[in-house]
Each structure stands twice: as structure tokens, then as C-alpha cells.
């Protein structure tokens, strides 16, 4: 696949631009959802109802590992985007696959964390604080899971359709989504885990 195949008509270019702009607006409204979940968490962080606090529950090592794999996955997605603009289909596929692996690692670590907490009797039903924690971090995890499904679909599209203009434009929006989740995670790390442990 060469770059020539990716030249698009002005009308299509306009359509892709509209889609990208619309996607930014979606991210904005999603950011409001997270902002409200953060606010809810901060309001409820002290409402432990005699149950465990963040200090007793959070492990900085695990949070650091989660952060590491997620940030790395953002980097590898970046490499996929570089390969996309170079028109290198097999490299795009490779980097996307690595991104999926890293994202899956993140989800695996997060599920492990959640299961551990629930086994200790610190599930979301234990206190208002834990309800807010599971909802905020879980909503992010749900987004990452949806993102993983999306990357898998895009791997399929790149594989079967090649790096056509519509596929490239979808990859651009997927990139926005994936990096957005990274930013949200950085805020979760700073607002939930760091103050919880320090």
C-alpha cells in the first residue's frame, strides 16, 4: 500500500474532518463524565463507614505497573500511527497487536486488583468510598476494554481492507480515544492512588 492510495477527494477529506471534530466533542462530553466521577470520588473519599481506607487497600507497586503498561501502550499506538503515515501495513499491524497486549495486561492487573479487594471484603458494597472508587476506576477500565475491542476490529480492517482512507481516518479517531484514556489514567493515579498511599 502506497501513499497514493490514501489521497482522498476534497469531499471525503471534509467528511473525515467533520468526523474527527465530532469525535473531539464526544471526548469532551466523556471528559465531563469523568470529571463528575472524580468529583463524586473526592466527595466520598472519607465516607469509609468504618471500612478500610485507601491507605490500607492500594498498592503503589500495582498502580505503578498499571501506569507503566498503559503509558507504554500509548507509546506503541504512537508507533502504529507513525507506521500508518509511512504506509507500512505490516508494521501498523504489529504495533496495534502490541498495543492490544499491553492494554490486556492493564485490564488483567486491574481485574486482579478488584478481585483482591473484593476477597478482602472491600468490595463496592462495603462503603460509599469504595462504591465511588470502583465506579471511577471501573468506568475507566470499561473504556479501556471497549478500546481494546475497537483496536481488534481495526486490526481486522487493516488486515482485510489495507490502509485505505476510511480505515486511516478510523485509526486516527481510535488514537484520540486511546490517548484520552491515558490522560484519564494519569489523573486517576494522581487523584486516587497517590493521595491514598502517601
Amino acid at each position: 500500500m502506497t501513499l497514493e492510495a490514501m489521497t482522498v477527494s476534497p469531499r471525503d477529506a471534509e467528511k473525515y474532518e467533520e468526523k474527527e471534530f465530532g469525535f473531539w466533542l464526544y471526548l469532551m462530553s466523556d471528559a465531563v463524565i469523568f470529571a463528575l466521577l472524580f468529583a463524586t470520588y473526592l466527595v466520598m473519599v472519607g465516607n469509609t463507614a468504618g471500612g478500610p481506607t485507601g491507605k490500607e487497600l492500594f498498592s503503589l507497586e500495582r498502580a505503578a505497573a498499571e501506569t507503566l503498561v498503559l503509558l507504554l501502550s500509548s507509546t506503541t499506538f504512537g508507533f502504529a500511527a507513525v507506521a500508518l503515515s509511512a504506509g507500512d501495513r505490516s508494521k501498523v499491524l504489529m504495533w496495534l497487536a502490541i498495543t492490544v497486549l499491553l492494554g490486556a495486561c492493564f485490564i488483567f492487573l486491574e481485574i486482579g486488583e478488584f478481585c483482591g479487594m473484593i476477597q478482602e471484603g472491600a468490595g463496592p458494597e462495603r462503603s460509599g468510598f469504595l462504591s465511588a472508587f470502583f465506579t471511577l476506576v471501573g468506568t475507566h477500565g470499561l473504556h479501556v476494554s471497549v478500546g481494546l475491542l475497537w483496536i481488534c476490529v481495526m486490526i481486522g480492517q487493516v488486515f482485510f481492507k489495507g490502509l485505505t482512507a476510511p480505515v486511516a481516518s478510523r485509526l486516527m479517531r481510535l488514537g484520540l480515544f486511546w490517548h484520552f484514556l491515558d490522560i484519564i489514567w494519569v489523573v486517576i493515579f494522581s487523584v486516587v492512588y497517590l493521595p491514598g498511599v502517601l
Partner: protein
Amino acid sequence: MDLFGRLTIESLPFYSAIAASGAAVTVLGALAVVGAITYFGAWRMVLTEWVSSVDHKKIGIMYIMLALVMLVRGFVDAAMMRSQQAIAYNSEGYLPPGHFDQIFSSHGTIMIFFMAMPFLAGLANLIVPQQIGSRDVAFPFMNSISLWLTTAGAGLMLLSLVVGKFSTAGWTAYPPYSGVQFTPGVGVDYWLWMVFIAGFGSTMTGINFLVTIIKCRAPGMTMFRLPLFTWTIFVTSLLMIFAFPALTVACATLILDRNFDFHFFTNAMGGNMMNYINLFWLWGHPEVYILILPAFGVFSEVVAVFSQKRLFGYVSLVCATVAIGLLSFTVWLHHFFTMGSSARVNSFFGTMTTIISVPTGVKVFDWLLTMYRGRIIFKPPMLFTIGFLVTFVIGGLSGVLLALPPVDYMMHNTTFLVAHFHNMIIPGVLFGYLAGYMFWFPKAFGFKLNERWGTYAFWCWIIGFYVAFMPLYVLGLLGMPRRMEHYEIAAWQPHLIVAWVGAFIILLGMACLAVQLIVSIRERNEALDLTGDPWNGRSLEWATSSPAAPYNFAVLPQVEGRDAWWDMKARGVAYQRPDKYEDIIMPKNTYVGAVIGGAGFVFGFAMIWWMWWLAALALLVIFVAVVIRASDDDSDYVMPASEVKKIEDARFAELAKAPRNEMADDPGYAGDPVPEAT
């Protein structure tokens, strides 16, 4: 019986004659629609041309049909409440308390979420792309998803009358009452899931219209040349994008509380119920402006057209619209002044609430000054506009009163408040939408609505409004709380009987609307709109044929100033044929939107009744539908220039037969468009 979750045979409404008859009407209504489509052999047409349509005009019409059906349903609730309160002095009336509570809850829910929201989305769909000189919205397919998700929510609303009981927690569902401890059962879950699902549709509508207005304008259509209706939809879309997430979060967290034993809003275990009330009104107050700004837009269009004069103070109206949009996020706490905030917090929100009435006042003066020295033609849309101006100001004044926290302490939860917000919403929102409906009906269907019955409808609505709601102001001052199923104070009853009479007059208004529609359809050949410009209009939607061609504009118009169509007529460049036509790329119809909406409906139903397998199945269907659509690179088709030419030839043949100006025979006609100083 895990298969059916908590759904049992006792969920059917055979426990009460009133509930059973409500269910029967709903079921028979649905059967009647199915029967009528079958009788007329119209299934193919309904499916291929409407259900699968991604044409903004058809989607708009379907939204408005939904809104009108739900208006009837919501009005029945209102009439039942008025009847109960009129007779319930020292007696139990005819409704048991639990049933009365369901009725006021469903009345509010329906009127806000499934009457007003679809109505505004419908008007926006029908008109905005044509006003900005565009061929469609930015995302026609997403538009179809929005419609069907809204319909899915409305479907759950209607279904709640047949299977299970509806919420008794009011349209706001405040915890802890709406929590599972005090309200077990499916009622609140019905409310939560229908609002949640319809809310997704609204967020997507907001995104769609913001992108459309920013990116799809015709050449020369700068932001400060946009018609006022489009401006109000622009601000409303912004509010939707920013405010609906708060509703999503409020609903999602209450769903978690109720179904999965979370503790966001419970009394014990560290819940914080005030957080719900903040989240809800963080959406709820912008929502008031989401509803009312488009109505302001309609009034701005109508008042200029029927005063036959350029809109007064265009820039100030735009600024006021934007200012209201911003300020709408700074007043939410005035819905709960009495719930424990400090005096300092209350006074901030009280002040902001008073300030928001300033831009609204600017608008009122602009409309009045548009009429000043205009040659006013009293068509029904104009009557609704004038009725609005007079009535809305009264509601605004009672609002400024309520904005003062000490006064609010006296009035909170009384019928004074009920009178106030109906005084804003009926003239402000509903009159606006009805004016828009009568104003743009010819654009949608190619013939005008009967004016006589429209006028009757207006007089019934406005008189009925005053008779029904002015007594509630008095009752509020007498100390009557809202939502009372029965009472022991003799002094209240006369006022409640007067209010009941008012509801009856409004019923006549509803009947007039129905008669108007029937008469207009029967006599449509006498009121055909051949030019596409029945009112001597000012903005670009009147440049298209009525109903508009699928592509709206064969050639995109070149806009030279405000009131683009008026300007084209004045310069003598209206109705010009281009030298040649070009191929037009159009989106293909698709069922994917309807499938997603249907699966959304099933998903909501399954979650309400705890049928987890069915919920998972519905999610899977949505996922597969999205993936199939997202892999489809061939979603457009090309309408060849020859076909465009055929449609346009027919249009110009009609034009040749038509009078050049359909308003010219009207006694109040002020003369043909002439160039205006800019």
C-alpha cells in the same frame, strides 16, 4: 424462573381497573397502529422509506410524531391529577395514593424527556440543515441512532403502563426515597433506564448539530448570518454535550445503588444523597434552557416573518442566547435552597438566578420591538408568539420571586412552584414548539395547516392555561404542598375545581389540534404550498420546495447577508435555474440505527427485570451492528445529475403554476421584499 428474572405474571396490571384500562389503551393503541399499517398495505413503505431513513427531514417528522403521541399521554396524566385533586377534599377521590404518585411521576417524565426533547430534536432536524443551506446533518446515520434510542426510551415509558408499575418518586427520583430500601420494585428502574437510554440519544443529537452548524454551512453563511433558530440550536447542542453527562452519571450511580448494592446515595454505609441532587440539577437546570432556547428561536423566526420586518436587535439576541447558555450552568442550586446550604452559597445562586433573567428580558424587548411598526399578520404561529410574550413575562416575574432564597423557603414544594414552572414551560416551550409546528408544517408536507382550527386551539390553550394555573399560585400562597393525593382544607377546593375547569379547556385545545390536523389533511388540496415559501419567509428553508427534495438544494446557495432568502428575493435572484446540475452524493438508508434502538429497548427491559442473559444478548447485537456499520466503506450513493434535473424540472413546473407570492393576497400584506440597509 431465572429466565424471566423478577418478571412474574403478577406484573400484569389486573390488580386495579384504572391501571388495567390504561394498559388496555396502550396495547390497543399499538395494535391499532400495526393494524392500520397492515390495512393500508404500507409496511414496505414504512420500513424502507421511514424506519431505515437517514434523511434529516423524515427523522424530524418521526421525532415530532413521537412528541405528539407522548403529549397526549402526558396530558391524560395531567387531567387525571386535576380530576383527583378537584374531588379529593376529605375524600380519597378515585385514585389510590400509590397510583396518584405514579401519575405525577410519569407526567413530568413524559413531558420533559419524551414530549419536549423529541419535539425540539424534530424541529431542529427538519429545519436547521435547510436554514444553513446544507444537504443534510453532518452525521445522518448517527441521527438515526439518536432517533431510535429516544424512541426506545419512550417505548419503555409506554411499556411501564402494561408490565409492572412505574416509579412513584417524581420525575426527579430523589434518593433516599428512590433507593431500593424505600422503593423496591421496578418503577424507579424503569425511570432510570428509559432516561439513561434516551440520554445517549440526546448527547449524540447535540454532537451532531454542533458539527453540522459549525462545518456544514453554505458558502457565505457566516456565524453572524445564521438565522436565530439555528443559533439557539447551536447553543442548545453545546448545553446537551456538556449537561447530559451529569444525567448519565446520576442515573448510572443510582442504578448501581439500586441493583448492585452500591452506596452512593444510601442513608447508611457512607452514602451521600445530596450528591445525587447536585448531579441531577447540574443537568436539570441547563436542560430547562435546552428546551426553551429552541422555542425562543422559533419565536424569533415567527415574529419577524409575521411582522414583515427584519428581526430587531439580531446581535443582542445572539449574545443573549449565548449568555443564557453560559449562565445556565451557574444556577442549579436554586432547585434546593432549602436543603442545607449555607446562606453564602444560597445568596450566590440566588444572585445568579436573578441575573439570568436579564438576557431573557433583552430577548422579550427585541421581540416587542420587532413587532413595533411592523405590519403584523395574525396567523396561528404569531398568536402563539404573542400569547407567549404576555404569559411568559408573568412566569418570569414569579421566577425572580422564587430566586430569592428567603422567599423560596416559603414557597418550596408548594403549588406556587408548580404554577411557576408550568408558567415558563407551557407558554415558553410548548407554545414555541406548537408555533414551530404550524409555521413549518407546510415545509414538511407541502400544504398548510388549517388556520381557523389553529386559532381555536390557541385560544383554548391560552385561556385554559390561565384558568388552570393561576389558581395554583393562590393555592401555593395558601400553603398547599405539591403532589397531594387528598387534603382536609376546605379553602383549597374551590381553587382546585377552577384549575380542573382549566384542564378541561386545555383538553378542548388538544381536541382542536387534532381536528386541525384531520381537517388540514382532508382539505390539503385547497392549501397547497406550491412555491415552498408560504409565508413570504426570510431564511433559507423557504428556498427549497415543500416538501424539500432529498438533497434540499440542487445547487448550494450563495449567501450574501442576513435573512438570506429575503435578500435573494429582494435582489431578484430567487428561484433561478442553474445552467446544469451535478451528481449529488447521498447517504444510503440503513436499518442499523433502528436495530441499535431496538436492541437498546430490549437491553433496558432486560436490565429492569434482571434478565441478565437477555441484556447480554442485546449488548452483543449492538456490538455486532456497530462493527458491521463501522466496516462499511460504501454507505453513500450517487444521485445522478439527470435525476436531480428531473426533480428540479418538476419543481419549476409547479412554480410556474403557483402565484409568485402566496402571502400577496393577505389583507395585511406589506409589499414585496426590497433590499434592506445592512
